[in-house]
């Protein structure tokens, strides 16, 4: 595996640790951290800052009986919540979003496929599958877009992105990512707003395809 060269900006890791990133970006950050030791330790450093602040906080007395309540619960079996772990190329946050299932791909044309993992008014997370040599459909985006490579690689005006690399683009970047020749490129894409794919179909049809 080549070294990861495109990372998460520090302020974004701090925001992730504190929980202030919206869900779609938190999925992308947690996925990158799963693959990237460098960002993992930076995240751990931010956790240390949080821990130091917590430790220096003036305490507020807790209710009488709280400790006894808690001690009484220690022997109770832990609730059985599904614990997901990495599966193949997919890190845990992706597996969790897929609920442990294989992605359900929908064709977008030209061999490009997508699988929507989550979507809300705030933003969306999807997997994109782009055959080698094929361009990711030309798109503009509102707000920020994060693209994490899970398989293969792509290149655009700003550089080459290999497995584990994450591209963070704002609306000023009108880029044309092209999957490099070889195996298909599979990416996790998190966006602030629905992607507008310009090249493939009229805008009117986009709500039908949910892109």
């Amino acid at each position, binding site marked *: 595996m080549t070294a990861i060269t495109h990372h998460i900006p520090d*302020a974004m890791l701090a*925001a992730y640790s504190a929980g*202030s990133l919206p869900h779609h970006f938190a999925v992308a950050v947690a996925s990158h951290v799963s693959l990237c030791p460098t960002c993992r330790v930076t995240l*751990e450093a931010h*956790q*240390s*800052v949080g821990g130091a602040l917590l430790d220096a906080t003036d305490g507020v007395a807790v209710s009488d009986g709280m400790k006894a309540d808690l*001690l009484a619960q220690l022997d109770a079996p832990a609730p059985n919540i599904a614990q997901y772990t990495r599966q193949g190329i997919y890190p845990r946050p992706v597996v969790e979003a897929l609920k442990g299932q294989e992605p359900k791909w929908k064709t977008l044309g030209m061999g490009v496929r997508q699988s929507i993992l989550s979507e809300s008014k705030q933003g969306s997370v999807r997997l994109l599958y782009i055959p080698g040599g094929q361009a990711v459909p030309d798109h503009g985006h509102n707000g920020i877009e994060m693209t994490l490579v899970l398989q293969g690689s792509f290149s655009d005006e700003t550089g080459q992105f290999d497995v584990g690399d994450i591209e963070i683009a704002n609306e000023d970047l009108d880029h044309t990512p092209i999957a490099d020749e070889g195996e298909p490129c599979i990416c996790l894409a998190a966006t602030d707003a629905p992607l507008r794919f310009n090249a493939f179909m009229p805008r009117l049809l986009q709500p039908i395809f949910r892109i």
Partner: protein
Amino acid sequence: MAAMRRREGKPVSQKKTEISEQTVWMLAIRDNRDRAAFCALFDHFAPRLKGFIMRTGCSAHQAEEIVQDVMLTVWRKAAMFDPHRAQVSAWIYQIARNRHIDVVRKENRPVPDELAEDPGSEPDASQILAVEQEAGKLKQALSSLKPEQREIIEKAYLGELTHQEISTQTGLPLGTIKSRIRLGLERLRHELKGMRE
């Protein structure tokens, strides 16, 4: 169970006595399911957690519910605590932020794949101490901030600033966390090397 109970209260090992009592408690919880140590950890962290969470505007009642969940998670997930990588307060901070978000936003917060410590590995006291020393330096750096600076940093780590606001306003104490990062990287490289062998 009886055999385990008998180990309660004993120091984890002589070597670890220089290590902070929080870490000693946490290791006793992790390795011996030590209830006395859990009580000590609760007495230290529960009031701080409650105060910390209430600063975000949570009611005392809701804050206590979160504290209860956090402390229960500390007990149940103790196996994931790795003193070579995090001091106890950092580990609990992240559990608390995650739980707070789950409760307030009613969503399941995505978390990375975990890197569990190799269960058979012997504790490396010098590494644990190094992590604690870095944490001590960090605490010192935070306490020397001007009140308005500190307030912004606190807001950031309480989840009240967006990442844009964090990058423009806080001037994160990056100088102080950099040595912590170097330390973490060394350890991680060491661990990843071990995994490949």
